[in-house]
């Protein structure tokens, strides 16, 4: 019974007696370990040990350490050897404890007993033995081999470590399927497109924030998500003192809140805004002469609206500046861009001139908001081209590539050795995501069909085109939740006859599975390694089982292929087993792995061996032997050398930084030739408006919109919460407790931020329950009326709206009720076709909001 304090105070004379009764009511068992009470034990922490591993809560992939007491993980910090996070993790690291000790984790293999599949249909799972689970999977796979159709096996990969080689390469290729579908295009491939078709780098960039004099953050909030989060958190405050920080984003991010300049552009107008900044810098003579070069006579001929003679300008490290100017930049005045983007012309001019004055020490941080749009390939190039004219590419305070990590690679000769004729032939068939078709160029790294188009896989599956998928294995993925157009995925997964899911929790993908295998939580219970970079250092960091797995789980990337290989061998197909035991024998002793767990360790030793065997200079930390590698948990490179790619060493067609992309021209021409069409047709089929030479330069494209302005008047903005561990932390109570650390958000609810002007227009008050509807779908969330969102837009973070996963993520798991609405149901299915990316930004998701 609760004592009312004021009532009690009147009775303070009996305080002593009350104190006694209070003590008597305590749960002494719960405090048995607090033996220090009354001064008995040593003050301080009980015995324990910090053990190294890696946090995979976001794409930073932080080297981390876990404090272990009595075999339990209890606290998290960064790896103290890390030159990227200096021993600190962001909130995600701490939050991960509620993932490993999630009460809704799967503890045993299970099988579906209800043959009907669909959203909200109870699979009626029952527990089964590991043997039964693996036998069933092996039987289904042997059916494909026996019918000479191994391509009908498909492996889908979500979160991964570099041990992926085993499950993602060796397994499907030796079995005979071309279908290893990664999640990569869900994440940032359009972003990588921007840096590849300018500087020849298909990857995230590193940013030298410690030395920046101007930081332009575009379409991301790097203290909250994207990459190198702890490194950025550490540096932003000092940067605000030393440099100017400007943030381009339609929502008020933390970076935007702290910045000197906030440029809240209209979604999908990034290309115009970037071009206008380029226009100002060039017409003002502010480009970096050392990198870009100059007019022969030193007289600036970049006059608004006027063409320049190409021969008048001599470029140094770049190519095609004048062509670019003549094609698009000359006409994109700040006034014109202001009309398109909603950012005032004087602010565009101020920011552009500010950057020019700080050049070349300018970090132009291009994030997914600028790129992951239906027509985002060219806006990604436009933003990254700013780094080119400022000379900050590969330069002090600018954007950098990476130092090398000398890990071993997959032995592809050995893989080929164990591919039989059927596997050789069928693993080269067209993939289920249809990459490389006319309307889906996916010219990743310059090659038609060179990357993945995750979100087109459901089309291939539904249309059985190029063929039917009969056996699907997914690991640590949840594409039916994490890819926009969730209804399409629901239909596709419902149509597959046999699906296996390797997972920690019963997620939405699991609900379509026939067999489910419980797996380890990556940060705590498995071996693996990752490569990452930040703050000029590349790093290789290990994942290790810092605790004994809480449940009887397996490591998805290594143990599953091994256990499956044993079963396939029993059934007369031994190639996979033979390949694995040869490829992953112990590199020190030559012993072949006898168990799945042994293979995990041997494989890790094989890949990381050059870092600890002392044979060659690693150009980084010196590590003496395997045991030291395990105990340190990571390796740092030397600092990346500035200007590594200057002097004609960019991996582009011209070896220069390209403003007119000969690299893209070649790639598009190659794709057009493959389909016997011209490049204009490729552009048309890929949803782009550019024709002719425009296809080869960074330019502005009008944004694509699903839904009329009349029926869907607002633009929906998706963003990633700083508490999102991918889409997996929504079953953690701490997620809801601290959700308000996302600016404008409110804890304990799925918050939709709406500007007061719009709220008034639609009769919505702060805290109202609202229905949000797009061409893609609808759902319920709670309105937050807030000045930090651009009028005409609404924003909500990705992550909530689970209809499976666990008791906290889902209001009532058994009834498949949701808590909030999944952004990927609201964002209609769409692709950025040149890179194959899921399009989720840029305003194609038009919505209406109604008070419920």
């Amino acid at each position, binding site marked *: 019974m609760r*004592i009312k304090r004021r009532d009690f105070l009147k009775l303070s004379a009996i305080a002593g007696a009350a104190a006694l009764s209070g003590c008597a009511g305590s749960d002494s068992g719960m405090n048995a370990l607090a033996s220090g009470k009354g001064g008995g034990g040593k003050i301080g922490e009980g015995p324990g040990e910090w053990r190294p591993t890696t946090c995979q809560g976001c794409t930073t992939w932080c080297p981390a350490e876990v404090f272990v007491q009595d075999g339990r993980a209890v606290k998290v910090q960064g790896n103290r050897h890390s030159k990227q996070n200096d021993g600190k993790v962001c909130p995600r690291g701490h939050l991960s404890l509620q993932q490993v000790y999630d009460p809704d984790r799967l503890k045993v293999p299970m099988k579906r007993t209800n043959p009907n599949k669909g959203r909200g249909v109870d699979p009626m799972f029952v527990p089964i033995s590991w043997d039964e689970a693996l036998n069933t999977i092996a039987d289904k796979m042997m059916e494909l081999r026996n019918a000479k159709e191994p391509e009908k096996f498909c492996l889908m990969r979500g979160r991964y470590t570099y041990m992926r080689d085993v499950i993602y390469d060796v397994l499907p290729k030796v079995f005979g399927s071309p279908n290893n579908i990664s999640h990569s295009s869900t994440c940032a491939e359009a972003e990588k497109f921007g840096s590849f078709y300018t500087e020849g780098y298909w990857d995230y960039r590193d940013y030298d924030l410690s030395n920046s004099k101007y930081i332009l953050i575009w379409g991301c909030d790097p203290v909250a998500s994207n990459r190198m989060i702890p490194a950025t958190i550490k540096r932003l405050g000092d940067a605000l003192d030393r440099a100017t920080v400007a943030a381009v984003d339609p929502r008020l991010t933390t970076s935007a809140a702290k910045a000197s300049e906030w440029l809240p552009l209209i979604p999908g107008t990034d290309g115009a805004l970037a071009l206008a900044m380029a226009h100002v810098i060039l017409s003002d003579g502010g480009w970096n002469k050392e990198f870009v070069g100059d007019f022969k006579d030193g007289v600036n001929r970049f006059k608004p609206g006027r063409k320049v003679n190409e021969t008048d300008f001599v470029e140094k490290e770049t190519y095609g500046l004048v062509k670019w100017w003549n094609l698009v930049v000359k006409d994109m005045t700040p006034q014109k861009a202001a009309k398109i983007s909603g950012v005032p012309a004087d602010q565009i001019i101020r920011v552009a001139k500010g950057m020019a004055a700080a050049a070349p020490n300018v970090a132009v941080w291009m994030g997914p908001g600028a790129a992951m749009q239906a027509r985002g390939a060219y806006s990604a190039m436009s933003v990254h081209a700013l780094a080119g004219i400022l000379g900050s590419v590969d330069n002090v305070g600018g954007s950098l590539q990476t130092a090398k990590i000398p890990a071993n690679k997959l032995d592809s000769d050995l893989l080929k050795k164990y591919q039989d004729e059927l596997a050789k032939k069928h693993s080269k068939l067209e993939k289920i995501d249809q990459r490389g078709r006319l309307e889906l160029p996916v010219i990743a790294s310059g090659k038609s069909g060179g990357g993945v188009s995750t979100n087109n896989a459901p089309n291939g599956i539904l249309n059985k085109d190029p063929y039917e998928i009969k056996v699907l294995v997914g690991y640590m993925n949840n594409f039916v939740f994490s890819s926009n157009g969730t209804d399409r995925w629901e239909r596709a997964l419902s149509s597959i006859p046999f699906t296996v899911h390797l997972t920690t929790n019963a997620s939405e993908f699991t609900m379509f599975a026939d067999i489910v295998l419980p797996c380890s939580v990556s940060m705590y219970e498995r071996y693996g390694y990752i490569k990452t970079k930040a703050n000029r250092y590349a790093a290789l960091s290990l994942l290790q089982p810092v605790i004994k797995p809480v449940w009887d789980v397996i490591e998805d990337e290594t143990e599953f292929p091994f256990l499956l290989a044993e079963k396939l061998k029993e059934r007369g197909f031994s190639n996979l087993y033979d390949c694995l035991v040869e490829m992953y024998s112990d590199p020190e002793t030559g012993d072949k792995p006898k168990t799945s767990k042994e293979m995990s360790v041997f494989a890790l030793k094989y890949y990381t061996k050059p870092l600890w065997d002392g044979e060659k200079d690693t150009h980084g930390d010196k590590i003496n032997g395997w045991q030291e590698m395990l105990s340190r948990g990571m390796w740092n490179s030397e600092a990346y050398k500035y200007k590594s790619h200057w002097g004609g060493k960019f991996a582009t067609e011209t070896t220069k930084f390209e403003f007119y992309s000969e690299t893209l021209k070649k790639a598009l021409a190659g794709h057009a030739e493959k389909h016997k069409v011209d490049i204009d047709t490729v552009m048309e089929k890929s949803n782009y408006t550019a024709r002719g030479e425009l296809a080869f330069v960074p330019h502005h494209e009008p944004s694509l919109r699903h839904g009329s302005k009349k029926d869907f008047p607002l633009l929906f903005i998706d963003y990633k919460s700083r508490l999102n561990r991918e889409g997996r932390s929504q079953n953690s109570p701490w997620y809801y407790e601290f959700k308000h*650390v996302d600016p404008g958000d409110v804890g304990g609810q799925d918050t939709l931020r709406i*500007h007061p002007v719009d709220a008034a227009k639609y009769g919505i008050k702060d805290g109202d329950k609202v229905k949000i509807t797009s061409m893609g779908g609808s759902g319920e969330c709670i309105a937050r009326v807030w000045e930090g969102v651009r009028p005409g837009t609404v924003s909500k973070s990705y992550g909530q709206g689970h209809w499976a996963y666990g008791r906290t993520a889902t209001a009532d798991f058994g009834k498949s009720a949701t808590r909030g609405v999944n952004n990927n149901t609201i964002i209609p299915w769409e692709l950025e076709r040149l890179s194959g990316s899921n399009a989720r930004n840029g305003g194609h998701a038009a919505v209406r909001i109604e008070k419920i």
Partner: protein
Amino acid sequence: MKQYGMVIDLRKCVGCGACALACKTENNTSLRGNGQTHNWADFIHETTGTFPHTKFRTLPVLCNHCSNAPCVEACPVEPKAMFKTADGITMHNDERCIGCRACQDACPYSMDEVMKDGSSGEYSVISYNQEGEPTQKFFTSKTEVIKKCSSSGAELVSLTKANPPYRHNYNHPDYENVRRDNIVEKCIFCDHRLKNNQQPACVDACPSGARVFGDLNDPGSEAAQLLNKDKGFVLKESEGTLPNVHYIREYSAR
């Protein structure tokens, strides 16, 4: 005399939440319930101005360890359960606490019942563990969302022999690492760490280096030196509590 305190550099702080989560993992504070946050470290947020000139800031909040602490004054038991240590920490002794909540009532930084959160400026330094309820209720449930296939909180507790399963064990003569029912709890500057020459967990965990802990009366301490340069501000100065948590510099550069 020592006066431990904290200086929070708002220019460095990005409001990420790492400090508050590190505090929860360090001190095994339970989940929000019965109007109590059990967040010894928390945040409040302020939005001012109108679009596009919107300003926003986050203030990390925790016990101010006031020199003139109303919670101590209000504590009715003798010797007091809420008291000042020689180091200037506002300390809480679990054993002597009778759960009367007079401290919570007296503290201008605490609320009897927190219905909202930092997005509305609501938080509470002092939380109360409901009488007769387990303090880690979340892990007592025996429900399995998929029968016989997924686990339950109770099963995790029985397997790990700890509640919460990630329970961090430490010893201190005044407070326990998991508090019992019918007592209050709050930030104690991680005295169990200070006694071992460690920083409070929130300070250690801050990726931005915004939180500087030290003896404010020692002119040589970093905290005192920061305050020397920038007087900063304290929360609810007019209450006259003389807080020892100070905020310096502006969150935003504009």
